[in-house]
């Protein structure tokens, strides 16, 4: 069945690039439909380090990426001031090597070079600290350090970034479809033209055709697969990046460390948690199911403990991995590959109307979307200027005061601050809409974050929540130490009401969610983490009786 009217543009992929392109085009008055195979921000973007950084690492060999990253980082601060946070970083310096003084000076010169880009993104220039000063600022640092150099970066909630791009696109007329596979492209081989996509909703339903003048392939690591549907080629050197999450903030600053192979890794305070990242290794497996080995977890912990010795004393909540759609290059090591992006028009391959956006960094997503949309506009023969660097994202027009909001709606101040962090000036809208639910929606459903009932209902109604995992991505519900054991049923009850689940469906969703949390914990379950798992296992089975909720399961 063909969708009669069709769209001017179909975007394939609901990561930051897909959502960014959809928003850009919608703001230019173009009719857009976006199709995402899973949830928004469910793959590469959601598995990124969550940094809107300036690409300091690329300064040595890829200055252009550093400059564009810094420039666009500045724009993101203007359009979404509420969802970013400053992360001061330290690079600890060690003595005892030959020419260490020379080396320290080289390091400092490097940071000084980076300082030139800092004004673009509102960053502060570097400073040089003695060992005592560094350890006073961050007592967790190793006693072995000889000093440190500081720099300045920004962190962001990537899930909110993608969702707010999608929300804005939808509010400007775009149609957003999650959990929908693109199973084919509509082509006219004689003319060498791509004229739309064939899509099939997950979980059943017949495939249907959606006509479009231009199809944008923003499928990230699936990009080559989508291009192949049109007989075209996208050449990537996909690379896997593993991160770990610690249940709390263990340091007050980000710390740059050196892994056993000399690569730079980091320990980064991120929202209420700490993130350790990342690995960078060629990966040619299924991007939808990325295995994580214990060796990868060890690689990160060993590197981190060299500068932060107590790192193993903390509880790891998750190990998670994404695949970077890095542009192909021969003969280089993985982390020497350029983070440049590329907009590819596949007309010469007999697929006019298909445009691929790939490569790049999170920090430059807006610029990538702009360049992609420019290419699309040329193909459409239309003319309208990009507005995404000027128009705030939803809620980005101003950042309300948390204490005022808390007073006005009778909620906890911390809950108000976190709500503002995710919704900006729309936090009040979330609470006003929630006023219709019991207790005015002010009930705290997840105490770790905290997440209010009003926000959960709002996410169901306006942010394409279909599962409890989607809700976690929208609100950070169940990101705390209990990993949902205490709050998942309460949240499932609300989703059941909003999405029309039966009680049995809700049970199934709860178990799937708990399994997914476990799947992400599993690679970390060594050492002290095993004691925590023994406790959780006992709580689930010994207290909550989950062994009898699955009567058919073989539990002996």
């Amino acid at each position, binding site marked *: 069945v063909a969708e009669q009217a069709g769209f001017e543009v179909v975007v394939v992929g609901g990561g930051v690039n897909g959502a960014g392109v959809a928003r850009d085009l919608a703001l230019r008055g173009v009719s857009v439909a976006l199709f995402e195979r899973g949830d928004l921000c469910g793959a590469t973007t959601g598995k990124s380090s969550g940094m809107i950084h300036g690409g300091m690492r690329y300064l040595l060999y890829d200055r252009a990426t550093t400059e564009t990253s810094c420039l666009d980082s500045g724009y993101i601060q203007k359009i979404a001031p509420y969802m970013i946070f400053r992360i001061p970083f330290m690079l600890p310096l060690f003595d005892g090597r030959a020419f260490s003084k020379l080396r320290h000076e080289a390091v400092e010169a490097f940071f000084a070079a980076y300082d030139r880009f800092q004004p673009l993104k509102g960053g502060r220039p570097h400073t040089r600290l003695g060992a005592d000063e560094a350890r006073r600022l961050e007592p967790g640092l190793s006693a072995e350090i000889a000093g440190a150099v500081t720099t300045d970066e920004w962190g962001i909630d990537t899930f909110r970034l993608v969702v707010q791009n999608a929300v804005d696109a939808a509010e400007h007329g775009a149609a957003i479809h999650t959990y929908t596979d693109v199973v084919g492209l509509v082509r006219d081989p004689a003319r060498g033209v791509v004229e739309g996509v064939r899509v099939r909703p997950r979980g059943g339903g017949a495939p249907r055709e959606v006509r479009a003048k231009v199809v944008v392939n923003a499928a990230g690591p699936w990009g080559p697969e989508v291009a192949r549907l049109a007989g075209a080629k996208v050449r990537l050197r996909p690379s896997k990046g593993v991160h770990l999450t610690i249940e709390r903030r263990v340091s007050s600053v980000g710390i740059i460390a050196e892994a056993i192979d000399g690569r730079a890794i980091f320990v980064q305070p991120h929202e209420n948690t700490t993130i350790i990242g990342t690995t960078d290794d060629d990966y040619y497996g299924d991007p939808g199911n990325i295995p994580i080995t*214990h060796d990868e977890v060890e690689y990160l912990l060993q590197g981190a403990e060299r500068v932060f010795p107590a790192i193993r004393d903390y509880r790891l909540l998750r190990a998670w991995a994404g695949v970077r759609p890095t542009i192909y290059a021969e003969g280089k090591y993985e982390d020497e590959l350029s983070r440049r992006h590329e907009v590819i028009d596949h007309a010469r391959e007999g697929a006019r109307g298909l445009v691929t956006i790939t490569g790049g960094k999170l920090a430059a997503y807006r610029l990538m979307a702009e360049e992609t949309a420019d290419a699309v506009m040329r193909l459409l023969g239309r003319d309208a200027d990009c507005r995404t660097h000027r128009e705030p994202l939803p809620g980005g027009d101003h950042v309300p005061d948390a204490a005022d909001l808390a007073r006005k709606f*009778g*909620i*906890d101040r911390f809950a108000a601050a976190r709500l503002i962090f995710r919704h900006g000036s729309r936090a009040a809208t979330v609470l006003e809409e929630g006023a219709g639910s*019991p*207790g*005015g*929606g*002010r*009930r*705290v*459903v997840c*105490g*770790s974050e905290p997440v*209010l*009932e009003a926000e959960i209902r709002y996410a169901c109604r306006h942010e394409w929540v279909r599962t409890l995992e989607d809700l976690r991505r929208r609100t950070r519900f169940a990101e*705390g*130490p*209990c990993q949902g*054991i*205490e709050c998942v*049923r*309460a949240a499932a*009850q609300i989703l059941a009401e909003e999405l029309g689940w039966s*009680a049995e469906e809700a049970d199934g969703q709860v*178990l799937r969610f*708990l*399994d997914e*949390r*476990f*799947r992400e914990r*599993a690679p970390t*379950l*060594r*050492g*002290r983490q*095993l*004691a925590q*798992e*023994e*406790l*959780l*296992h*006992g*709580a*689930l*089975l*010994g*207290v*909550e*009786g*989950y*062994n*009898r*909720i*699955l*009567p058919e*399961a073989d*539990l*002996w």
Partner: protein
Amino acid sequence: VIRPLDELPAFRTTASAQRTFDVVVLGGGLAGAVAAKKAAEAGRRVGLVREGGGATVHSSGAFDVVSPRGPLAAEGGTPPLLRPALEALLRANPHHPYAIVGAGDAGAVIGLLEEATDDLFRDLDEEGLLYRGGVARNLWVATPGGHVKESAFAQEAIAAGDLAALPKARIAAVAVALGGPSDGALAAAKAEARARAAGIRRALDARGFFGVRELIPVAVAALPRGAGRAADEVTVARALDDQGVAAAWAKEVARALDAEAPRATHLLFPPLLGLAEPGAAVAVVKAETGREVLETVALPPSVPGLRLGRALDRVLERKGVTVMAGRAVRAEAVGPALRRVSVAGRDGAVEPVEARAFILAAGRYLGGGLRERNRVGEPLFDLPLYYRGRPIEEIRPGEWLDRHVVSPHPVLAFGVRCATDLRPIGRSGGPAFDNLFAAGGVMAGGSFATDGTGLGVGLATGYVAGLNAAEAV
């Protein structure tokens, strides 16, 4: 929120300089406490070394004997019989600790559990903690999440909440507005009560039990005086240990009932009715409200688990057991016999403790009985570990965990293998030492959370190990 272990209340340490004993128990959970009690009752001088209350204080406090497989209920909506379930477990898993203490015979295990529960519960009763239940059928106790959990014995008010034994009851599922008073806290309590009532109703329907006439959600806004703006059940339970406070609070509960559930015959609370003397708080609430008073079990930090830990502590004191806070870090043997262990106290000081027999009851990873550092090991004696009869070296790390969170995970069922007298097997294949016994979670073979044998195993093996160690000296 599940708290770090070190935030739990500190447990008592005996002020005694004695460091030479007949029997020394390593581990302070249920298995260790029962073993120490039995050895002390046999007239031995007993010392117990522990870091805390082990997994026991985090548990539901209910004694799970076995969780039946298959249908949720027998004909007519009654809990399934335990004996066939135990027989099936022993057939399916001949390496289960029950199989060792009962020589593979379900009747012998049931006999042992009857004897051991009678014996322990008499002592706990004297400390104001009453247990009810039996080994014929499980109780159906309500969980905080609105499920039904099966257990053989539970603390008095929890066992009174055996849903299978409440025909015609109109149960008010009461939730307290923890963290309040505020609109949000009251809304949370209302939602919690609603979810619990609906969940229990569904769980009973799934079992074909239609006896409970009504489940009515009730939210109580008031917190007991002295609980501040308590956000946790432990603080509320502690406040309700004061009878006057409990009586005043019960009046508030009665008011909420008049408004929301005047016809309720039973009140089902989370387990917050007293920490030190739950019976007294229950009696006060019963008197003030004129209803039967029941409790659910709880997630960690678990009030019933803490009640059990405290009562066990007082039993040990009464039996003259010397309790030492610390961890055994080194063991010394002369020939085939263990002579002493070095105990590192919390202050870092290390001192030797000598005995003629030792009992290892340090649990698994939570208790410190097992540790993973590149390999899973038993840190004190380096005893070989097994999983269902196989040396764990044969089990690749890729097989340590199952795919599903609620499945049995081999790595959580690793442990020491024991001879029938509960002496752990050493590297030579015979008993590791002439005078070392083991009990509880450190034993291989059971996946206690999934097979529903948690405190049942701790009790049965602790009982036998204590008697055997006493006899050996």
